[in-house]
């Protein structure tokens, strides 16, 4: 099972993952699950009616717009970073936070590397399954290297143009 790092108020810590990732062909297990978008569209109603907490895994090529009406019922949206440094999940994350006002967990899954941790946080991710074996401490260090940011994003950091106004 991959490590799950959670970031709350700029503090990163390793947590036990209550969710089970369920692949498309696999049994729906019991308890809280994260399923693909396709699987959710087929079985989502049933899972939710069983009282389980449900998360949806959105591939890089899929768009969070497809979840617009389901977001209030979802506990986790897991956005996938494929190998080869694919940044589409950044856009998906910002849209979840900024356009749809999603308050649940936005989790980074796939090729999740600490070099991009700060960008992920700025785009609204708050949970991470690192693929590079980074510890919570290393993850936190990676997200806190820069004292300033130049642009507004999905986090609550004040961009330079606001800071400068004093």
């Amino acid at each position, binding site marked *: 099972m991959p490590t799950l790092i959670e970031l709350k108020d700029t503090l990163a810590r390793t947590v036990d993952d209550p969710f089970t990732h369920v692949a498309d062909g696999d049994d729906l297990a019991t308890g809280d699950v994260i399923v693909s978008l396709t699987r959710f569209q087929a079985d989502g109603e049933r899972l939710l009616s069983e009282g389980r907490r449900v998360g949806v895994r959105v591939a890089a090529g899929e768009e969070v717009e497809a979840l617009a009406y389901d977001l209030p019922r979802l506990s986790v949206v897991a956005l996938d970073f494929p190998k080869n440094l694919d*940044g589409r999940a950044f856009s998906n994350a910002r849209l979840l936070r900024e356009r749809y006002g999603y308050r649940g967990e936005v989790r980074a899954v796939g090729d999740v590397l600490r070099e991009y941790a700060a960008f992920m946080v700025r*785009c609204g991710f708050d949970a991470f399954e690192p693929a590079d074996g980074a510890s919570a401490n290393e993850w936190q260090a990676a997200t806190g290297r820069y004292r300033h940011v130049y642009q507004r994003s999905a986090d609550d950091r004040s961009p330079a143009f606001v800071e400068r106004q004093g």
Partner: protein
Amino acid sequence: MYQYDTVDRQMLADRTAEFRGQVARRLSGELTEDQFKRLRLMNGLYLQLHAYMLRVAVPYGSLNPTQMRKLAWIGRTYDKGYGHFTTRTNLQFHWIRLKDAPDILDHLATVDMHAIQTSGNCIRNVTADPYAGATAEEVDDPRVWAEALRQWSTFHPEFSLLPRKFKFAITAAPKDRTAARVHDIGLVLRRARDGALGFEVIVGGGMGRTPYIGPTIREFLPANRLMSYMEAILRVYNRHGRRDNNYKARIKILVAALGTEEFTRQVEAEWAKIGDSVDLPDTELARIRGAFTRTGFETLPARSEVFEAAKASNPALARFARNNLKPHKKPGYAIVEISLKGIGETPGDATSEQMEAVADLAERYGQDDIRVTHEQNLVLPHVKLDDVAAVWAGLHAAGIATPNINLVSDIIACPGLDYCALANARAIPIAQHIAEKFRDPDRAEKVGELKIKISGCINACGHHHVGHIGILGVDKKGEEFYQLTLGGSGAEDAALGSSLGPALPYEKVADAVDTLVDVYLRERQDGERFLDTFRRTGVTPFKEAVYADAH
């Protein structure tokens, strides 16, 4: 020159600290070269044929003398005593040792310089009009907007892993010195009839193996909505640009595949949803404008008797003045272009001594202002006519008074097979051979404006598609051949060149250019440039002459 504040400086300090840690992890073996690659590529560090190459950003081509001296010093201390100015108006050091890279970045940071986003699939250095602030043609100073774009794009969290690299050009003059129509985004500042400032937005131009002249997707974008509109374009691109094939990943391919109309519709729809929260407030735009060092101009007569007398007694100065001086917005001043295309030299190379000479001249005679052009030359944008003779003497002493701006030997060439692992063929020696052919400055002047651009492979770093004469190196069974194109332009009359005919072997290229020029001189009508003649006559007379031997 934009003056950094604490925020800008701390940004660089945090970056250099981060990179130092990454290099240490590589040197200790904790990171493999492969793992390190994605990190160094975010810092402009490439592994080339012979050594590491460090690409230093020169944001919108603007430098002050202190920065230029620092570059000279780095060239002398860590490289072989020179640097190479690129078509992105950056400066490359080609002989860097990895262990020195963090120190170099620290030294750069002391003069507010860096290598951030000079590589990788992110938003790269913005090209701006090198005559900004000096030409009477412009409706506003494009550097203000280029600086705003620099800040917005620096470590942009959403757009740091794009499908492919992304390049902006911005100009405020009708005469385009930035090649705006062959950039991912070209911005042309305009004033509406009511005086309001805005941008023409051009998207999806580009070179490489699939060249396009970019279409205009918006005739007039209100200036204060720039960032949100750029964010909309980049978001559409980040989500929908192709990622399955590196050669089809630039935004030009997306724009062409969707069609301009549908692409524009998607951008406008996204823009409407984004709103204005990412736009810079007017106060910040005013702050950026105010953070540029003020230039002060004296009231001078339009004609300088000192200068006229000096030209009359010095034909070399007179020739330099004819070719390298451009009109300034203020009477009694000139824009001085410094050619880095000395005959027989590598286009864009400058020695540390030459950089220092330019820094000294900028300090003494040029209001501390130096520009780098995408044609790989330097510019002193504000020189009094009274001082031009002294500037020329200084340049002459440093060996950089070559009077060939826009002439046949003012060639753009990529590093080619001499340095680059991607190249199929040499580019620099071709440029040198052609320059040698036109060594006689009278003949070169007689030929007039002629832009030759040479790329050592299809990636087109030498911009061959938009050369009046474009030269592309190809590999034919292990031998270097060159495909010639005619009629391209990267300026306001942008066009892609069309093929002359079968590729020529290495040793025939300079002769072929010579022949093309002879045809032009024979065919040209009153005042036509090479480009104009070609556009009137078509390829036939040129083709016949070059391939005459084969018939």
